[in-house]
């Protein structure tokens, strides 16, 4: 198969690194070669966080090249737009309709309008943070919820069983059930 390129983006503190670990583990379970790239330290402190996950038969670079993403998952609207340089006309955007503003932030309307323009391959915008807060009491589960959405809607070549097994390995027992619930919430 051709290498599948995923860009996963958001704001420091949204649990993106954990999400990358889950994805990597699921790829290994499913027999893919996988490479991912993430940033720690200063870049995590409430700033923009961009991570790359690439899966396939043999993966070289851990980074997705510009215009090469198959799927861009944004846990925050402006961050999804920020990384649209990774998109091409077929790229699908899966975006958490959730804004984390700061002085000088674009309005939500403007961000969404621009996102619509760049997402020629399709835009799924979902209020994942809100849904998770309402259903599970924790908006930080939005990432795992969106992962469930991507898997069940077949936006990513991973089987639900692989991800569920990965959750067993990556997530500490205390939080596991909550994460499995968030993942399966998108099935409905």
């Amino acid at each position, binding site marked *: 198969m051709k290498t599948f390129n995923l860009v996963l983006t958001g*704001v*420091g*503190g949204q649990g993106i690194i954990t999400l*990358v*670990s889950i994805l*990597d*583990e699921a*790829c*290994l379970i499913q027999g893919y*070669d*996988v*490479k*991912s*790239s*993430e*940033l*720690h*330290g*200063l*870049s*995590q*402190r*409430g*700033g*923009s966080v961009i991570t790359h996950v690439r899966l396939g038969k043999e*993966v*070289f*670079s*851990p*980074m997705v*090249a*510009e*215009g*090469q993403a198959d799927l861009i998952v944004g846990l925050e609207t*402006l*961050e999804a*737009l*920020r990384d*649209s*340089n*990774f*998109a*091409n006309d077929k*790229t699908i955007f899966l975006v958490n309709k959730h804004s984390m503003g*700061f*002085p*000088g*932030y*674009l309005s939500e309307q*403007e961000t969404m309008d*621009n996102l619509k*323009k*760049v997402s020629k391959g399709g835009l799924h915008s979902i209020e994942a943070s809100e849904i998770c807060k309402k259903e599970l009491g924790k908006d930080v589960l939005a990432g795992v919820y969106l992962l469930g959405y991507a898997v069940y809607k077949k936006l990513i070549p991973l089987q639900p069983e692989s991800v569920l097994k990965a959750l067993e390995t990556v997530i500490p027992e205390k939080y596991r059930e909550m994460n499995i619930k968030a993942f399966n919430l998108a099935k409905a």
Partner: protein
Amino acid sequence: MEKKKKVLLGNEAVVKGALAVGVDYVSGYPGCPSAEIGDEFGRIAKENGVYAEWATNEKVGLESAIGASFSGLKSLVNMKSFGINVCSDSLFPLAYTGTKAPMVIFVGDDPSCHSSAQSEQDSRGYAYLSKIPVLDPSSPQECYDFTKLGYEISEKFNVPVILRSTTRVAHQRAPVVFDAPDKRDFKKGNFVKNPHQFSTMPPRVMEMKTELLAKFEKIKAYAEKSKANKVIGKKTGKMGIVTTGISYYYVMEALEVMGLDLPVLKLGFFYPLPEKLIAGFLKGKKKVLVAEELDPYLEKEIRVIAKTINPKAEIFGKNVLSETGELNTEKVALGLIKAFKIKTSKIFKTKKAGVQIPRRYPRLCDGCPYWNILPVIKRALGQDLDKTIFGGDIGCNMMAGLPPHNMQDYMFSMGASMGISHGVSKATNQKVVSLIGDGTFFHAGIPGLINAVYNKSNPLIVVLDNRITAMTGHQQNPGMGKTVMGGDVEMIKIEDIATSCGVKHVKTLDPANMGELESAVKEFLQKDEVSIIVCRHVCALLERRLKSNPDLGKFYINPQI
């Protein structure tokens, strides 16, 4: 030993490599991208019979490992790029004395400065200054393999070996096949006296240099045969690529995308270079691209080798690839197109967002005690705010330089605020307020403080003591009363150190009491001598972590203290 396959971060793979060879002793100082190594050892040291510590700084960390090596224990030292500057004073003599038990020194560079102030340092340059072998891995698997290789070289030649990584290798995750050794008990070494080997007193030091140079020739011959250097792809051709580290993957990716098959020489050894292997590769080539990040060290070496072996060959490097910032597949593809005059339609096309997207600055976390400290200092300064010079230092307090605070007039290296603030205070009549965190104070702040007292200047030093080395991911430090292995130790108080250093005006307070902080700032601004306010309040993130996971209590301070 049990063979396993797991997805690992590059840095986790270094830990596995060190465990596989039976490392006994781990020291270092946390930074990005290296901290995960020491953190992981903190968690697993006990069950694996390893001693692990966070040293007060990288120099002490290296020296600690030197003591262990001289006593017969296998050691690992871990630090970020700038750490090697700090420890270089002891690194150079270590090359002369050599190691007794093997030692690997991990250094994590950060091209593009994702999590680094100071400079975009290429630590490979230390190879030339120290004559210490340097290995440059590309992937987590190589992080594991090269760690083991490092110990093999160190054991064979009695030299320390530098394992130089970069952010995209250290923070790359990929499947790794590794050996997981059985659990074992702690080992104690035995120091056998040998001042002839361990003391660099002249004239012996000159003999040692000669010995090192002789050793170096042997390591060079070893590097020629090492599997860490290899040719990939087509064996012959007029055009070829020499590469190392993460750049290797960008090269392979670019070749794949453009549908090209060219010979690629991948060098795992940066120092010493396998010159014969390189010469063989250069023979018959018309054009060679050297793909390396940051400084053109490799390119210069290859130009020299080409001069004798193939003077007509055109060598490309920094003339087609940037010396600033990380490389990536796109940049390498463009470099290939320019160097080899490749005609291709398969270059990377990209979308533009259509609007300018405002930068999202990193910020202080919600509930961070610094949110109290910074505005209160401003308020206390009142009309003098604009005239006041603000010294900044490394750590979470760097955020003082960003909006909305904008309280940073200079920021250099660990502890540098102390020396620079003294200099500004001495050279002008302006008032200096200098900010520093607790970890940085212990690391390199103390000599600067003594200097300010001794040479009589009058900065107001505000120590933002959140009881932890926070920025790099919550590492224990001497102020906390806990070690990385979860041991209880004496809490070392910054105010006691300041008093012992001769500072007469010292106040310790909780910045939650904003009135007390404001009057302390106002009072101390009037002083003609150095003054210090220690603002002590535990990091908000740590407090939350401890609340949600009380088991962490054995590794971290009780926030009530």
